[in-house]
């Protein structure tokens, strides 16, 4: 198995004619991802790497029946693109765009909840089920199919963890970047639920960072009986408090968002937390 995406996922790329949309469409096609349509308003009728482009999601849905949408459009139009995908009854949306206003996301997230649409991101590298489908920006070659589920708030740290696993010959079931913004779609806890039910996944890597309380929530969920071993790393232990470190997510506010609080919560839940980002691979090898 694997979670969220696989070889049957039919992908719609929103913003396919932009620089990044085009580049990554080619990369994903090369990986074997089934991209069935693209959307860019005003560019209907064109093709990108052989993929037909439509003006609206509604047209793309009518013609190509996609099951997942990827949003590559600029920040000021991204909320609208997510809503258009949801309006088109696409039940999984992966939004890669960074820099969407948080008030837009408040509205979007609520609308998606009401309409039972799953969102990954925004500000995520996407999702990959190695060997089956890549719906994201990650370099495909660093991944191998295998038994470890990987999830993180950070994109590049996710790659780092995967790279260390693959170097040791440990493959991945699905790797999910949940996104670094204050308001995102699926949380660590939501992904853990999916990994719990996935036969292929035998262990999970959680890459957290300071700010918010997604890691604390995940720790509570794991502590309540998550059936598989979990290895974690929390970035930002040495970040000075009160400074904004890139992700809106990484503002340390109050005790609950600190690296120490997160590490303590995870360790209490039985998670193996490694102190250095260089140690993730070794720690997973030890629990397999």
């Amino acid at each position, binding site marked *: 198995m694997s979670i969220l995406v696989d070889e049957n996922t039919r992908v719609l790329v929103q913003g396919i004619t932009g620089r990044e949309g085009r580049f990554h469409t080619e990369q994903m096609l090369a990986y074997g991802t089934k991209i069935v349509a693209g959307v860019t308003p005003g560019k209907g009728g064109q093709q990108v790497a052989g993929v037909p482009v439509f003006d609206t999601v509604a047209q793309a849905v009518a013609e190509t029946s996609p099951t997942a949408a990827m949003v590559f459009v600029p920040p000021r139009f991204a909320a609208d693109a997510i809503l258009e995908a949801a309006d088109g009854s696409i039940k999984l949306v992966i939004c890669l765009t960074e820099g969407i*206003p948080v008030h837009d996301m408040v509205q979007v997230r609520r609308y998606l909840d009401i309409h039972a649409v799953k969102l990954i991101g925004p500000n995520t590298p996407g999702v990959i089920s190695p060997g089956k489908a890549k719906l994201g920006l*990650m370099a495909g070659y660093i991944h191998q199919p295998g038994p470890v589920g990987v999830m993180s708030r950070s994109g590049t740290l996710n790659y780092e963890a995967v*790279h260390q696993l693959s170097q040791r010959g440990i493959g991945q079931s699905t790797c999910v970047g949940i996104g670094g913004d204050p308001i995102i779609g699926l949380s660590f806890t939501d992904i853990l639920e999916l990994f719990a039910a996935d036969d292929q996944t035998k262990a999970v890597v959680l890459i957290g960072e300071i700010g918010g309380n997604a890691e604390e929530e995940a720790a509570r969920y794991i502590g309540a009986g998550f059936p598989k071993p979990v290895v974690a790393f929390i970035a930002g232990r040495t970040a*000075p408090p009160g400074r904004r470190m890139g992700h809106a997510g990484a503002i340390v506010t109050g005790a609950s968002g600190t690296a120490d609080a997160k590490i303590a919560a995870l360790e209490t839940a039985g998670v193996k937390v490694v102190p250095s980002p260089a140690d993730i691979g070794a720690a997973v090898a030890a629990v397999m």
Partner: protein
Amino acid sequence: MNIHEYQAKELFSSFGIPIPEGRVATTPAAAEKIATELASPVVIKAQIHAGGRGKAGGVKRAASPEAARAAAAELLGRTLVTHQTGPAGKIVHKVLVERVAAVKTEIYLGITIDRTQRVPVIMASPAGGMEIEQIADESPDKIFKEWIHPEIGLRPFQAYRLALKLGLDAAETRAVAQVITALHRVFVDKDCLLVETNPLIIDNNGAALALDAKINFDDNGLFRHPDIVALRDPAEEDPLESAARKSNLNYVKLHGNVGCLVNGAGLAMATMDLIKLAGAEPANFLDVGGGANEDMIEQGFSLLLSDPDVNAVFINIFGGILRCDILARGIVAAVSRRSVDVPVIVRLEGTNVEQGREILDRSGLHFQRANDLAEAAALIARAVQEVAQ
């Protein structure tokens, strides 16, 4: 993005929130003139982008125009160190001169995004005048909250219900409910991450008055608000950080000596952690982001080299959106313009990594290649030791 208290108050006022009469002054003479016009005892408040000004001596009372002049003279040009400024402090370029209000009751009101509930939350407390963290620590039962349903927005019954918990009389409760409603409009209309008034006071006449005002705007929403962008005060920003912001780089100056250039905030923080574990101190946080182009990389690398504290550089890139070839071209461009006399450690992986390595190899730049983070940590430790010798 932050703005000054006096700017936040003007914004509050434009949304119908009552504020004390007053004006901003940049000279002691102007402060005296304002105090004369107000014909009342005044309070002189240093305008810097940091909380904790009161305890740091940045807020003074003056009973006469002459005293106002003296207080302004004492504050203007002075460097104020509060628990939010960092040890370097901030220079006071402006003071706000305001009529002193007769405080009957002090209230805390604040609005922010609750990340767990994923909606805005309005917080109110009768323990006004204290930091919200301090109230939360010392009397959590005195913080009341209303969460906003995004599908309908803040409703009058919620503003009233929240105000009612503050233990005021009926007219005061209505006045505070109105301020809550107006604050929420500021929060939503202006794409804010935080709107706060602490204290909001009830004066001797039972009127509500925002004695303080703090707003933090969502940088991502600023494109909708040219009026807010115009309020930016460059004097409040670190010059290196401003330069970085202009290049769309996310740069934070720190106090160590290993400069680092990383893509992705998470990896950047992890890189800082790694530097510390290797026995060194990071000189900065620098996330070039996913959308970086050659120019931005060149700017970022030049920025590091221009920091006199930096005596080693660690470039840690895991290419995804940012392709390794683009990174390499940016580095090469920066190096072609200036000499590099500090050790540079490069760890490159991910999209187009082969092209990136090739470009760097042919660049003539002397650098040490790390194949993984463990190797990078070892190289950093060695570089720092060599510099120390």
